[in-house]
């Protein structure tokens, strides 16, 4: 049920990712100021946007779960948050490398986006201990959903707060919408963003398919185990 459209989606992901890489290395101009190292921007920023989008999407799926009581929405929300956390590790590492290369420090506290991302990441890390320390599956789903909604609403609020705290000390070089990017860079950035988004959706569907399949396998095995003693008798 989750595997529908997985194949074309995977093919589209491969093509877009390849296209994005080609654009990054052969088409986008070198940054006059930062040089080659600026290319990490095409990985770092899409990854961060997709991760934050994944967190918020996880919250929306959690709302659907609480509204409908359908546990499959909880599973969707869990997989989305799980993948966003993995992407989050990537965001923090690439951000750190970029900061080191262009500002000379591995970590910069006056970069509001980086700092808010760390706070959000720390909060979401608690999702695992919370989820897996509740044994009752129904309650686990409900509590995880409540967490996902709270944290999802927290994401934008936190960004506003951290940005305000730094607003007047650190001027932004690139605006968030890419408005100040030259055309070639913007195209490359948008294709990279699309590739990252497609990658996220493909992996999300793949993970759901595999979880669904292993649950079905368990169910079949259990039924088989139930039947065998009866046959012997």
């Amino acid at each position, binding site marked *: 049920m989750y595997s529908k459209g997985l194949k074309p989606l995977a093919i589209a992901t491969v093509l877009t990712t390849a296209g994005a890489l080609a654009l990054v290395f052969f088409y986008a101009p070198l940054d006059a100021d930062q040089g080659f190292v600026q290319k990490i921007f095409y990985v770092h920023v899409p990854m961060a946007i997709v991760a934050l989008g994944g967190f918020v999407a996880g919250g929306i799926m959690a709302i659907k779960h*609480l509204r409908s009581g359908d546990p499959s929405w909880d599973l969707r929300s869990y997989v989305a948050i799980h993948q966003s956390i993995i992407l989050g590790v990537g965001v923090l590492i690439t951000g750190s490398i970029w900061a080191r290369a262009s500002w000379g420090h591995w970590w910069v506290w006056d970069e509001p986006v980086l700092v808010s991302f760390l*706070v*959000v990441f*720390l*909060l979401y*890390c*608690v999702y695992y*201990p*919370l989820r897996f*320390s*509740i044994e009752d599956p129904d*309650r686990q789903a*409900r*509590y995880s*959903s*409540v*967490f996902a*909604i*709270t*944290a999802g*609403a*927290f994401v934008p*609020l*936190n960004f*506003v*707060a*951290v940005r*305000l*705290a730094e607003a007047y000390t650190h001027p932004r070089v690139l605006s968030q919408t890419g408005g100040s990017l030259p055309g070639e860079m913007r195209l490359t950035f948008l294709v990279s963003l699309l590739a990252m988004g497609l990658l996220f959706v493909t992996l999300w569907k793949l993970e759901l398919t595999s979880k669904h399949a292993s649950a079905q396998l368990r169910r079949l095995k259990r039924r088989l185990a139930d039947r065998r003693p009866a046959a012997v008798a």
Partner: protein
Amino acid sequence: MIRTAATILRKDLRIELRVRESVPAMTLFTVTVYVLFHFGLDRDSLDGELASGVLWVTLLLASVIGVSRLYAAEREQGGVDGLLLAPIDRTALFLAKAGALLLFLVAVEIVAVPAFGLLLLGPGLGGALPELVVILALGNVGVAAVGALVGALAAETRARELTAPLLLLPLLVPLLISCAQATEPLLRPDQGPEDLGRWLGLLTLYDVVFVLLSVAVFDYLLED
């Protein structure tokens, strides 16, 4: 619903008055942390950024103690079942718990803030008091709303004493930013509010978002 909430709140306050568990522990904790900061920073008196940071971090850490004990009676004595059997709105329980935490925080601050002025603060507290009371009041509302939700969320996990602070503290970061930034100019030697409106606005936004959010999702934590 308000009447039910008031009844549960009265019950919590009566327990606290008889057992004297959370508030004395939280108050003692704040004074201990001041002593730790005195030695950790090796400073006899603080002002400005450092003072407001120390004050707010201490208060938020103390609130962790209150949050992890907030549902102790319900959990250990099976009070939740009693509340679930009663034909009452679940929101009433949230309001009562948030109210109890709010009053605990006020009680702690009545001692902890003057103690901070006495032990660590360089410039006097007197001139800054009216603004500080407003900031503390708005901060308390936010901590109470988030704390009552997180306490309920952590109450059912196996390692609840670990989960509650880990959930609570990142969620309080925006609150810490606005409270500490709003308090900072008040604690400088040349006192005077600065940018107060911006930070109080953010604080109010935080309070509204988390009160509404907690009321909306709290029901699902008790559905059994």
